[in-house]
């Protein structure tokens, strides 16, 4: 760690990890309700509340992770301290308490009068999020503007500004449901398949720069190619959400064409990561961080790219829309692209933040395989549930609940995958908190800050 | 720049000539023969634009790649027209009515 203010990231990431634990636990509760609907009293654990906590906690901790990543990597990239550490902590307090009180409030059925999926936060919490985002952007922009400008900070900043700007659409909720849905996707799609991808690409580029030691030149050119293909396809790719919501039929063409190209940037990221590791001259001691980074690119390619493409063409989506196929895609895409990314940068940075490099990475590496195996197993189970459910309900004409009864086995398997995922997640968290020092120094491992 | 002015001008003249061929084909009666003529002429035009206008003469691999894409698209569309031809009889009958508006 070269800059004092990189320490800010520690606070953000510890907060993120706490909410990560909440998120996966409630995921498990949701999976349990699927297989044992009478076990938990519906007055206290209605499924909608459980799902709300699961999804909102996910968004909150991923964003906390992104903020942490920004506070960690921007000083190194800009070659100066964060403009105002005090503001950074104020922002953390607002965002973390807002996110936490939203989640706790849901337990008592306190959510927005005009809630929409992912946007259930009461208005005052939404406003808090916006205030926190403004503080963050001010702080980060001032740091970047005064320091060295690199492609990584440029892209990261663009992504973070985009996240804040598109969140403003969460405040717009027209009475016409179809119009409402159209602008709801301005937040949700343009986040996860637009601005978040910019953050992902720039953080991955930073990790590759540090871990592999490949020239900045090479990495930044890759970065531009990846984000260019991401936005050229992703913006009009939004059309794949406009097929059946009351919007014009031409979206079926626009959505199918552009979103089938959304695979390209994810493929590019995967090739990029492997090519960099292959070319890399540096034998970085933090193998765990490298595994998380490579795993991120591979699982994002499959989850966001391949599983997305599976049902993005309008002829297929006509049948699979609104089935568990979407849930399968959602789980692997969020995990691969954004969860792994956050865990990768944390794994990379924690030894520096806690001054423990090198450390014993066995637990951390094990948690990668366990968590990923769990999520992949969940995804496969849900894909079968979705494909079979689609056939029974949408092709054979069985009623919804009858079809659901036929696919109960896959929900049981999904729950099993969920248990493994939660164990993996807890293992990851404890591996970072314990971070045992290794007794034997690996040859070639240099316990100095990278670069 | 590898392409000289005279080569460029020849490319341009060839392109316009091919366009005239296409225009003739357009007025000719729809048939498999004219379909193939249209595809070949159009493909040749894309190749000239790629090689001379875009200067991909200097990058043969890229020329082959980009040309393959445009040719493949044209060929696939033409192929599907041959596999799923337009029914002839009703077309003629309705042609007159549709040309009136």
């Amino acid at each position: 760690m070269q800059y004092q203010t990189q320490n800010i990231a520690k606070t953000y990431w510890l907060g993120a990890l706490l909410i990560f634990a909440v998120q996966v636990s409630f995921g498990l509760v949701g999976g349990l309700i699927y297989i044992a609907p009478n076990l938990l009293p519906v007055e206290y654990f209605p499924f909608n509340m459980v799902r709300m906590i699961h999804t909102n906690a996910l968004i909150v901790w991923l964003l906390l992770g992104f903020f942490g990543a920004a506070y960690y990597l921007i000083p190194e990239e800009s070659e100066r301290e964060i403009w105002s550490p005090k503001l950074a902590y104020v922002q953390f307090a607002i965002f973390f308490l807002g996110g936490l009180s939203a989640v706790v409030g849901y337990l008592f059925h306190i959510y927005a009068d005009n809630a929409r999926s992912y946007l259930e936060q009461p208005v005052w919490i939404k406003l808090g999020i916006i205030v926190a985002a403004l503080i963050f952007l001010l702080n980060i922009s001032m740091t970047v503007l005064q320091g060295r400008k690199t492609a990584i900070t440029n892209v990261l900043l663009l992504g973070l500004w985009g996240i804040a700007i598109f969140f403003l659409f969460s405040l717009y909720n027209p009475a016409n449901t179809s119009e409402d849905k159209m602008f709801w996707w301005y937040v949700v799609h343009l986040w996860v398949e637009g601005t978040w991808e910019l953050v992902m690409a720039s953080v991955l580029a930073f990790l590759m720069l540090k871990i592999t030691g490949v020239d900045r030149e090479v990495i930044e050119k890759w970065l531009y190619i990846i984000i260019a293909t991401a936005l050229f396809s992703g913006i009009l790719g939004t059309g794949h959400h406009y097929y059946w919501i009351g919007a014009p039929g031409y979206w079926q063409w626009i959505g199918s064409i552009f979103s089938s190209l959304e695979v390209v940037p994810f493929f590019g990221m995967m090739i990029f990561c492997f090519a960099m590791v292959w070319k890399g001259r540096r034998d970085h001691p933090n193998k765990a961080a490298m595994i998380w980074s490579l795993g991120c690119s591979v699982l994002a390619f499959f989850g966001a790219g391949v599983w997305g493409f599976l049902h993005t063409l309008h002829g297929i989506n006509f049948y699979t829309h609104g089935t568990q196929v979407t849930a399968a895609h959602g789980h692997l895409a969020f995990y691969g692209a954004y969860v792994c990314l956050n865990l990768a940068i944390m794994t990379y940075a924690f030894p520096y933040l806690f001054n423990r490099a090198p450390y014993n990475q066995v637990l951390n590496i094990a948690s990668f395989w366990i968590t990923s195996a769990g999520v992949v197993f969940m995804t496969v189970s849900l894909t079968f549930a979705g494909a079979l459910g689609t056939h029974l309900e949408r092709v054979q004409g069985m009623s919804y609940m009858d079809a659901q009864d036929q696919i109960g086995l896959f929900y049981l398997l999904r729950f099993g995958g969920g248990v493994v995922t939660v164990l993996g997640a807890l293992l990851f968290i404890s591996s970072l908190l314990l971070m045992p020092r290794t007794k034997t120094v690996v040859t070639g491992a240099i316990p100095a800050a990278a670069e | 720049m590898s392409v000289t002015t005279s080569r460029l001008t020849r490319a341009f003249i060839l392109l316009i000539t091919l366009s005239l061929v296409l225009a003739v084909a357009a007025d000719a009666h729809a048939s498999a023969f004219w379909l193939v003529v249209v595809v070949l002429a159009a493909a040749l035009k894309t190749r000239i634009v790629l090689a001379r206008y875009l200067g991909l003469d200097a990058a043969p691999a890229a020329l082959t790649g980009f040309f393959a894409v445009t040719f493949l698209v044209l060929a696939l569309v033409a192929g599907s027209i041959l596999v799923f031809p337009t029914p002839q009889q009703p077309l003629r009958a309705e042609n007159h009515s549709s040309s009136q508006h």
Partner: protein
Amino acid sequence: MNAATTQTADAPAEWGPLSALPGHPLMWVLIASELAVFGLALLGYAGARAQNPLAFALEQDSLNRLAGVANTALLLTSGYFAARANQAAHAGDATRTRLWLAAASALGLGFLVVKGFEYAGEFAAGHDIDSSPFFTLYFLVTGFHALHVVLGLIILGIVGRLATKTAVETGTAFWHMVDLIWLVVFPVFYLMR
């Protein structure tokens, strides 16, 4: 850029296979993306047509083929002028570069005018983007192409102001791509039946 440019030279080799291409490599990423988009759209057209060849043939017949041929000639000539501008830029003659680019842009503008009249005629005949699968695809693809012509005109304007060798090379590469796409779109929609 400022201090960020610790990297002194952007050696072309660092862009890998893209560095052999004229103009800025990232422009070629854009060009390749566009070709993919239009390629997929035209394959989609073939699929949609296969489900109802008769309706497609009838509606194809109602297009104004003469306007299409005229527009092809306009774009090809404009492309020729753009290529001449590129030559002038390589010779270091900024004035000639700008003149050729202006000529190319004028014909591009002519393309848009002709296309505008065509659209007006089609709207007057009661066709629009919702009216049938053929016209949905027709308006989407040709409209998207026409927007590329607009973008191309803006780009030609920008590189005309700079009039440097690589800027013109980059800008005209995009313009030729617009030309190239029309050469595929035009026969598919107007001629192949």
